[in-house]
């Protein structure tokens, strides 16, 4: 009885050290994955913001219905446009009326507003330069009187997204380095506890690859477990955040999520693989009297 208890105690202690490695690796992978998730969401958000940017083409007063349609079609098939809305002179009056809250037409005997086409742009064209370019092309048309967009807004959006992007990239690179260092450390510790075992294996004539193989195999399996735990945690966080922010579902993209999970899995496997190999190699090459 006592012997059995002793044995199971020993086994539990060994398993305990594996579990702590798996847990620490999975927490690091979870942090990395969460950052990736935030970056993906930010990317999607920035696309949404940019697609809300657009410009308005004010048309000449004497333009014919046919010409308007032709122009609108031409813009529709151009690469930059996402959607176009034609606003006739009368529509413009209605819009302004609701904006102002009073019927300004009663003081006037003619409609001073111009017909216009509102263009929403694809995200990749929402850049000050390409907007200026598009404007200079469209203004050449004799039917176009004026093109207006909020230059400062476009500039601001562009600059801020860029700034946030660079910041996030720098932060995630830093975190990646931290992650690799942490995982490497905990794996090295768990191998360190087996350094004398490794020495004994060498003394009976085992080659380096033969000694390394079982350690690496175990390391990869632990990497897979860690990645699975990390993915479950990320999914849990996503589930709860959607309870509080239902809008998040709108920018959710299953395909991108799948990529993220695959990346977490690959990171888990590769980092454990490389760290385990390096750690075992280090102790194989250490002279036995330096192990103590």
């Amino acid at each position, binding site marked *: 009885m006592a*012997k059995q208890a002793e*044995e199971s105690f*020993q086994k539990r202690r*060994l398993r305990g050290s594996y579990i702590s490695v798996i847990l620490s690796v999975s927490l690091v992978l979870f942090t990395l994955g969460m950052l990736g998730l935030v970056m993906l969401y930010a990317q999607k958000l920035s696309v949404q913001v940019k697609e809300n940017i657009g410009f308005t083409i004010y048309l000449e007063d004497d333009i014919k219905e046919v010409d308007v349609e032709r122009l609108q079609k031409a813009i529709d098939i151009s690469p930059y446009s996402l959607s176009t809305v034609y606003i006739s002179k009368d529509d413009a009056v209605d819009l302004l009326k609701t904006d102002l809250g009073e019927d300004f037409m009663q003081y006037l005997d003619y409609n001073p507003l111009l017909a216009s086409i509102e263009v929403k742009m694809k995200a990749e064209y929402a850049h000050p330069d390409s907007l200026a370019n598009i404007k200079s092309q469209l203004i050449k048309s004799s039917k176009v009187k004026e093109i207006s967009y909020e230059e400062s807004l476009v500039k601001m959006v562009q600059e801020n997204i860029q700034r946030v992007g660079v910041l996030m990239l720098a932060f995630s690179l830093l975190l990646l380095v931290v992650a690799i260092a942490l995982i490497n450390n905990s794996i090295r510790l768990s191998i360190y506890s*087996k350094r*004398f*075992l490794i*020495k*004994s*294996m*060498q*003394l*009976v*004539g*085992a*080659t*380096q690859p*033969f*000694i390394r193989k079982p350690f690496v195999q175990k390391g990869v399996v632990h990497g897979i477990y860690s990645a699975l735990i990390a993915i479950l945690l990320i999914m849990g966080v996503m589930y709860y955040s959607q309870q509080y922010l239902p809008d998040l579902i709108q920018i959710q993209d299953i395909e991108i999520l799948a990529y993220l999970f695959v990346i977490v899995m690959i990171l888990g496997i590769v980092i454990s693989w490389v760290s385990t190999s390096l750690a075992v190699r280090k102790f194989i090459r250490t*002279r*036995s009297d330096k192990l103590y």
Partner: protein
Amino acid sequence: MKSIVSITNCNIYIDKHLVLSDVNFDINKGEFIYLIGKTGTGKSSLLKTLYGELPMTDGGGRIGEFDLRKLKRKQVPFLRRNLGIVFQDFQLLTDRTVAENLIFVMKATGWKDKQLMKERIEEVLEKVELGTKGFKMPYELSGGEQQRVAIARALINDPDLILADEPTGNLDPETSDNILKLLYDISQSGRAILMATHDYTLMSKYGNRTLRCDAGRVIDSLIESSPQKPPLQETD
């Protein structure tokens, strides 16, 4: 007859400190040799040089077909397969049973056939009188039993030479006597044994040749009239 080990004019260093100088000896088949000397005189270093843990940088050395001077890191495992090594602290793999310890050595050294492996395990365990203990974990065995497992492990690949570094250092006198008798019997079956020890009372029982480490030299009892050499110079 060709000797198993041949060391000529060898200097042994640890981290550039000269430990033994001008070492010369041969070991022939079936010899049982004691390696003696006070602690710190270089017994372990000499053994380490023989099994490739310390590189040989000076002089010449040969074990079987291996030239110790030209030994590369990748060849060390193959040198060790031709040796049996037994230590004071047993050096068993503590995370697996006795039989698994032996299986590890066999797999590491290229054994494939399960039936043959099983037979060989039974054979060597029988030889060290542990035929029924194959399923035990090392920590469930006494010191003497663990040392016998280590000897069984050293015998697995039928080596011509067994190096033993104070194999009785951790054992009580009676158990020591058993281990020594076991090693002596093994040497009688044609293997050479080089055993470092402090156990002078036991030495009188078996064998007679000694290599004595003293003041940086190795003195071979076979060469009674070894000429006196100038005292050791510390090199750096």
